[in-house]
């Protein structure tokens, strides 16, 4: 196909006609929108299986309409904000959360550049020459979604959750960023499609195993999933930063959380698991690429759910200690060692 014809840096400056860009953005967005309920349902079903019960299976066939019912119900609840809240920020914060999650989803490459409609179309939202930086930029903005939401609610539990969330998100973003440095040293590009192509020989999760683990752990923290869910630790802080959120605004936090899980799985797939590449040198036709990517993503999503069903949550100080005293030095060392190896073997 085209893969071999295009050099590593060849796609960076490449772009499609504007109408294709808009169409593909809308299509990928629609996919994202539909994946979230699927993940929601899968999580509840799988948790049910882990917990020796069935999980939802009465609403629609096999419980398939359960997320639909949940979302419809949440959207038809009462609009509400507490007396002590800061109204504008209270409404803005969930929007920020969902916005950043959606924006980050644009980055995941679902396949190689294909010939559709007689023109070359990249199966991704955007392929930027600064891919990871774009990701971290929106990750940093997502922090506002949680912090502003918790702070503007004017409730003590929300506030404590927001404080924990703020500290945790920015702490782990550093480790997340540093874990990718090793990959970039090896791949020599910041384009995510470029990184996938660079994994033609070997998926990065083998040579960059340390980076892979650090990135995965940091991603759990960035998405506020167990065991790092202290921001909404229901045993301590009732519901954490979204204590005062109900109805659609709560739904948007819910939505953003699962979308973030998808984004993180996509990024891990792209950066460490070889994106759309198949193992053992199999080169399937181009239309298989998105299926490969989605399959790999579902493994990571399964991992997320599995860990949620297995481990308890860490304490706040343990989380911070892990982030700053373990992951950060380890990630830096990993970057350093990778740099040395790359230069020596060059």
């Amino acid at each position, binding site marked *: 196909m085209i893969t071999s014809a295009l050099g590593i840096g060849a796609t960076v400056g490449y772009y499609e006609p504007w109408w294709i860009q808009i169409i593909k953005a809308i299509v990928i967005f629609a996919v994202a929108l539909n994946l979230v309920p699927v993940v929601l349902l899968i999580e509840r079903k799988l948790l049910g299986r882990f917990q020796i019960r069935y999980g939802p299976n009465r609403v629609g066939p096999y419980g398939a309409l359960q997320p639909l019912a949940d979302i419809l119900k949440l959207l038809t609840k009462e609009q509400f904000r507490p007396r002590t809240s800061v109204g504008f920020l209270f409404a803005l914060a969930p929007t920020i959360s969902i916005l950043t999650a959606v924006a980050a989803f644009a980055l995941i490459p679902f396949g190689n550049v294909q010939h559709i409609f007689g023109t070359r179309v990249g199966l991704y939202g955007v392929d930027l020459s600064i891919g990871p930086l774009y990701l971290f930029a929106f990750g940093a903005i997502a922090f506002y979604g949680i912090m502003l939401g918790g702070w503007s609610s004017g409730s003590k539990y929300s506030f404590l959750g927001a404080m924990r969330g703020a500290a945790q998100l920015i702490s782990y973003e550093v480790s997340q960023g540093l874990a990718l440095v090793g990959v970039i040293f090896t791949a020599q590009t910041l384009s995510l499609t470029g990184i996938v192509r660079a994994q033609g020989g070997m998926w990065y999760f083998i040579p960059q195993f340390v980076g892979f683990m650090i990135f995965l752990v940091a991603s759990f923290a960035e998405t506020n999933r167990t*065991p790092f869910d*202290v921001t909404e630790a229901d045993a301590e802080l009732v519901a954490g930063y979204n204590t005062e959120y109900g109805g659609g605004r709560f739904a948007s936090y819910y939505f953003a959380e699962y979308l973030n899980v998808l984004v993180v799985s996509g990024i891990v797939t792209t950066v460490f698991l070889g994106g759309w590449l198949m193992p053992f040198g199999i080169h399937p036709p181009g239309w298989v690429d998105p299926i490969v990517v989605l399959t790999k993503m579902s493994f990571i999503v399964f991992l997320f759910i599995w860990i949620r069903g297995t481990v*308890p949550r860490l304490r706040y100080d343990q989380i911070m200690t892990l982030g700053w005293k373990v992951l950060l030095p380890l990630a830096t060392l990993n970057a350093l060692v990778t740099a040395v190896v790359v230069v020596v073997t060059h």
Partner: protein
Amino acid sequence: MSTTSDYRKGEDSIELTSVAQQLSEQAEDWGGGRDSQELLTLNLGPHHPATHGVLRLVVTLQGEVVREVKPIIGYVHTGIEKTAEDKAYWKVIPVVERMDYLSYYFNSMAYCGAVETLLEVDVPKRAQYLRVIHLELNRIASHLLWLGTGVLDIGAITPFFYCLRERDRILDLFEQSSGQRMHTRYFQVGGVMEDIPRGWEAKLREFLKVMPPAADQYGKLVSANEIVLQRLRNTCAVDAQTLLSLGVTGPLLRAAGTPWDLRKATPYSSYDDFDFKIPVGTVGDNYDRFAVRLAEIYESVKIIEQAIDGLPEGPHITTDRKVALPPRHELATSMEALIHHFKLVTEGFRVPPGEVYFPIESARGELGCFVRSDGSSKPARVHMRDPSFVNLQALEAMGEGAYLADLIAAVAMLDPILGGIDR
């Protein structure tokens, strides 16, 4: 108080500010200095997922660290002791069972024991063994729910369902022997209500086969998990001396290394017939509390096995017709039985005047029942010395200086049952 608006008035009169003010005054004392942060007074409860009911903890936080914790109770005060004064002796049993709603057999055991002491009734051996079996099953059931919810409080959601799976089996056994899952009213003054039904023994043995591997499974699920160990080890440790001065008994005291167990110290209901061990901890931290209770499950299984193996033949309730109902078949033939039945059901038995305090080892510690009789057929005073009520006072010693998350874990490992606390 009959209309909603009256309750509204009551709502506005809740004194929150007094406590908050008091704490904030103290907070100013802590102010100043380099590390000073704003103190935050936080209410955990009465409606809070981690307080096991309606316990209210007023917590003063400095950042994430608990500076002061004050338990406030009474939100499920039911007036059980007052209600008990209004009922005949044998009708009090279902009422006291609803105090500590996780260890209902213990409640009725303490009460029946107290009344039997007053009456000087001898309980047949078979009844004593049946009581032991049910008490220990109840202890396992109580510990299982503690384990499930306790681990839920530190964030692991799955073990909860596994624990309730086994608990359901125990409740099935209760249901088969007495007809109810909870609050079975199985223990009567003078013995137990009915002999165990046919097939119950086989079912019990099946359960006894299942339980130890299941407990192993919980052990693996929980204590083989590094995060759990990190969360529980060396947190909220209180030494035995402080616990004794606070009146703490039960697994909490044993976790601190004091092997005090009333089943060994002052055996009641034939506990001296059985061979079992008292698990003790070393430092008295949250992990020890966890480990002691988990080990008690195995010991309870051992006791039940011995009791069911050595279950003696004989009547299941005392033959003293002044206290226990006559068997059903006698009613058709014996006039005397009919009179006894009539007297017992309408008025109940009269108890010689006096006071008695009957302590037993419940799943949470010393459960003492104080009964005062004035010679009538209704008790003049029934008081339960509930272990949760006394143990809760140790929370301040456990929580101060700990992290908020550890305080939650400490509450979970303290295992307070609000029904017992507030009565």
